[in-house]
């Protein structure tokens, strides 16, 4: 009973819930290799018909944006209201454009 035996690597699991939709993050799990990760993902994340396709990605392969950069990255979009259709007030005749 020791922590010397090293853990299987961590995988992130993405599931397509039905044909036509994109894969969405469902959770994570440990597995020795990709094949086992797919099998384990099937067993834990699709027991109730939650999916028709599974992606597994080694967690360490994911590059994430840093929470510290949140403002720098996403705030500039705040004041660009002209990117939204509602910015344009048009005559009633064409307003459902």
């Amino acid at each position, binding site marked *: *009973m020791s922590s010397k035996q090293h*853990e299987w690597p961590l995988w992130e699991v993405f599931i397509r819930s039905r044909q036509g939709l994109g894969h969405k993050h469902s*959770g994570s799990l*440990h597995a*020795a290799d990709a094949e086992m990760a797919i099998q384990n993902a099937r067993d*834990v994340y699709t*027991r109730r018909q939650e999916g028709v396709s599974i992606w597994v990605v080694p967690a360490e392969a994911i590059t994430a944006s840093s*929470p510290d950069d949140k403002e720098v990255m996403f705030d500039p979009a705040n004041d660009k209201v002209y990117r939204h259709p509602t910015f344009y007030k048009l005559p009633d005749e064409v307003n459902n454009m």
Partner: protein
Amino acid sequence: MSPVEMNLEARFDAYVAEEKKIEPKDWMPDAYRKTLIRQISQHAHSEIVGMLPEGNWISRAPSLKRKAILLAKVQDEAGHGLYLYSAAETLGVTRDQMLDDLHTGKAKYSSIFNYPTLTWADMGAVGWLVDGAAIMNQVPLCKCSYGPYARAMVRVCKEESFHQRQGFQVMLNLAQGTPEQKAMAQDALNRWWWPSLMMFGPNDADSPHSAQSMKWNIKRFSNDELRQRFVDMTVPQAELLGLTIPDPDLKWNEARGHYDFGDIQWEEFYNVIKGNGPCNKERLAARVKAHEDGAWVREAANAYAQKQKAKKADATTHAA
């Protein structure tokens, strides 16, 4: 605490107070992280150890249908353990560390699982009462401030409701069966009722960490509030079964709009937590044995993966 940290903490508190979610890489106070790691890992351990009392009846279920249902339920609990361990891992603790803490007795799990499952009726009482109480505790956690925990709880809660319903159905079948079967159901209710009420934890006055957890939006309702809700919900269900809740002080209080109920034997609760429940040793031993018996599988899978990786690397080098 440095002025910078105090500032961060004030911002954190304000952010959480607005019902916003914290994600793994966000700054959080150390105590918040520690509280979550303790709570989520204990919760995960409870799901895993919770498989043992029910696993006891899989091979003895009275029909193939009941066996399939029980298998599915126990498999769900394994999944719940996994979702929760994963959520805890996002806070920086490793799976191995958590398992070590469980196996060495350093970490706790819900004391309810230290009671034995003596008859088939216990499968009914456990689903109805134990999963019922768990749901009562877990639903508010779906809105907890820590994103990964909240998301794990949404999955768990979706899966729990069948657990309680199948348990109630087992009780219903027994209660409507022969006098012996009904007596068996009553006996199970007698043994599981009080431990189920203890699942909500100590009375509010004796629950020192609750206030902080409430402030952090980890906890939404107090132990006593949830316990009262559980009693109010369960009493009519017991009446429907035609069974008697083993509490002479239980009665409807018109003025409060709630059921009054008797005092809980807290010495028993603390005694079980301390390791002196009927099955503490057996549960831990079973868990450790399962882990140790599985060691060669984990090592073999690792060795195979390493070999495949080496082979692949080799093939790439030669192709170049």
